[in-house]
């Protein structure tokens, strides 16, 4: 009895420690963003929304925000077909050089982001697209694609191996079977992966730092630049905007695939 009780106490202590350690910075930022004072501190000196109001007036941040949105959308739009088809091909079909392709596509994970960023900067410079915004989206898509493939592969692996055969048996030619059976069946994975890609691109800093300049700076880079000059509570407010977007993505995920995940566990 006491052994089980002791185990419960230890486990819950660890859980709570982790929860607090993980959420404390967020809570502090959240509090600091509502301060009525002029410096980032916790607990805040009084409550106000003035930093959010100020944020709205800061065109630099607003533009950076819109640029980040643009970059993330491009990254997501490119990654959906690329990641979905790659994952389907690698997990579902017997193709030549399968392992080699798999390793190649997962390469971004093993290469430090600094190296990827530098490499892309040089390549983009060579082909004269450095300094434009859309290549940043492509670059972020490349480095995060493994996440998309993992999300889709997980769904594909949970599917019955005979799903396409069943469709063929029902009279569906291959393309029809793909569009009406395979694709809808992997949709939960595609949605999960797409939201993940969006959030990752939205937060990406290091590679963006290499690929952007003062004219096309994205929000994370912009925040970094501000920190280097002066730390004001508007940075906390920006961070809260980030948190809200992330929470929105999680909510969306739950709404879109929550039921489907249920299905997968069956």
């Amino acid at each position, binding site marked *: 009895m006491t052994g089980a009780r002791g185990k419960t106490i230890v486990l819950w202590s660890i859980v709570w420690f982790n929860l607090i350690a993980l959420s404390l910075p967020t809570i502090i930022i959240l509090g600091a963003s509502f301060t009525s004072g002029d410096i980032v501190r916790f607990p805040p000196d009084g409550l106000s929304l003035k930093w959010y109001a100020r944020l709205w007036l800061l065109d630099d941040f607003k533009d950076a925000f819109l640029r980040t949105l643009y970059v993330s959308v491009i990254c997501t739009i490119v990654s959906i077909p690329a990641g979905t088809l790659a994952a389907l091909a690698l997990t579902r079909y017997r193709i030549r050089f399968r392992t080699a392709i798999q390793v190649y596509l997962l390469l971004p994970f093993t290469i430090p982001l600094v190296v990827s960023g530098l490499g892309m900067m040089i390549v983009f410079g060579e082909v004269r697209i450095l300094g434009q915004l859309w290549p940043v989206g492509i670059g972020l898509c490349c480095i995060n694609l493994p996440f998309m493939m993992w999300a889709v592969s997980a769904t594909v692996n949970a*599917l*019955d*191996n*005979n*799903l396409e*055969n*069943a*469709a*063929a*048996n*029902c*009279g*569906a*030619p*291959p393309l*029809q*079977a793909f569009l*009406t*059976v395979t694709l*809808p*069946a992997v*949709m939960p994975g595609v949605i999960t992966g797409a939201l993940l890609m969006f959030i990752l691109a939205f937060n990406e800093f290091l590679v963006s730092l290499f690929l952007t300049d003062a004219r096309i700076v994205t929000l994370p880079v912009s925040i970094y630049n501000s920190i280097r000059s002066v730390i004001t509570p508007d940075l906390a407010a920006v961070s809260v905007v980030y948190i809200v977007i992330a929470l929105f993505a999680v909510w969306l995920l739950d709404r879109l695939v929550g039921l*489907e995940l*249920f*299905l997968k566990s*069956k």
Partner: protein
Amino acid sequence: MTSPLPVVELRDVSKSFGNVRAVKNVSFTLPRGSVLTILGPSGCGKTTLLRMIAGFDAPTSGEIFIQGQPVSSVPPYQRSIGMVFQKLALFPHMTAAENIAYPLKMRRYDPATIPGRVERYLQIVQLSGMGTRRIHELSGGQQQRVAIARALSFSPDLLLLDEPLSALDKKLREEMQLEFRRIQQELAVTTINVTHDQREALVMSDEIIVMSDGAVQQAADPVRLYREPSSRFVASFIGLTSLLTGRATKIQAMDVAIQVGNMVLKGRTADETIQNGAWVECALRAEQVRIFPAGKGFAEFDNALEGVVDQQIFEGDRMVYQVRCPALGDAPIFVFDHDPAHHQFHQKDDSVRIGWNAQDLLVYACSDA
């Protein structure tokens, strides 16, 4: 004069994967409306055979005919074959009704007739009113029924069952076996069923083909297959069977005397090639052996010997004994006692006498001789 065309005909169908010959020269014909079960241990090539009939794999040699037409160059989606897959392969993003309607849509049925047809098949599999349920909202047995309805809704020439019942628990499985039989007879659909479950094969089939190592061992109706297995393999695969190895000492037409250990047993064979002095294998069904306490007489049996109970298992409706007979070189003999409630129980290590008749000891030429 035209005899009715068989729905399916296989002529010398073989399939190799690399150096492995998964299916070796299989031929059979299947008349309209009958149920064929391909029975065999896993890896015997039965699923490969089914996949070739469905069109997912092409035969390496030989030809498959469906309704008299060779189908080697016909892709699976142009064959009129319904299939129930091992793990069902229902479409997870569709409702039960949408699953059943899918083959109708793909096969371009008049959209106006589809809902009525779906409703009819939901009724046949006893799922009326469940059409709007998602697949994961249905129980295992209900999912089975949806899979059956999906395979049958377009009235295919042929229904294929790839061990769809193997994942179910025993009670549900036996229920679904009878259910399949009912639906099959109601719709008179020609069916090929693949299984490793001997009971399922006996219950569901008009004809059984026993396969091992890619080759057909025996093709017969269930009763003949059970009563007259053509080889030691078939005899041991169906039913609980004791196996003995011995030497033929005296052969008179079908009657054979076999020396096993120190005993000479009387048996029967259908194999005319067995020579005096040849090594033979004998198979004995557990239900043909009677068991008595030691010392009790039973002159009516052709073979009678002393033994010791090695194991006894109570199965409710019957008792299964494993008896060791020193005279046979300690080979185990399995015995069913079908009326355990009214008979004496024999405990482990009890001395007993067992007996059986010559006609029940099936003698085969040694397969590896």
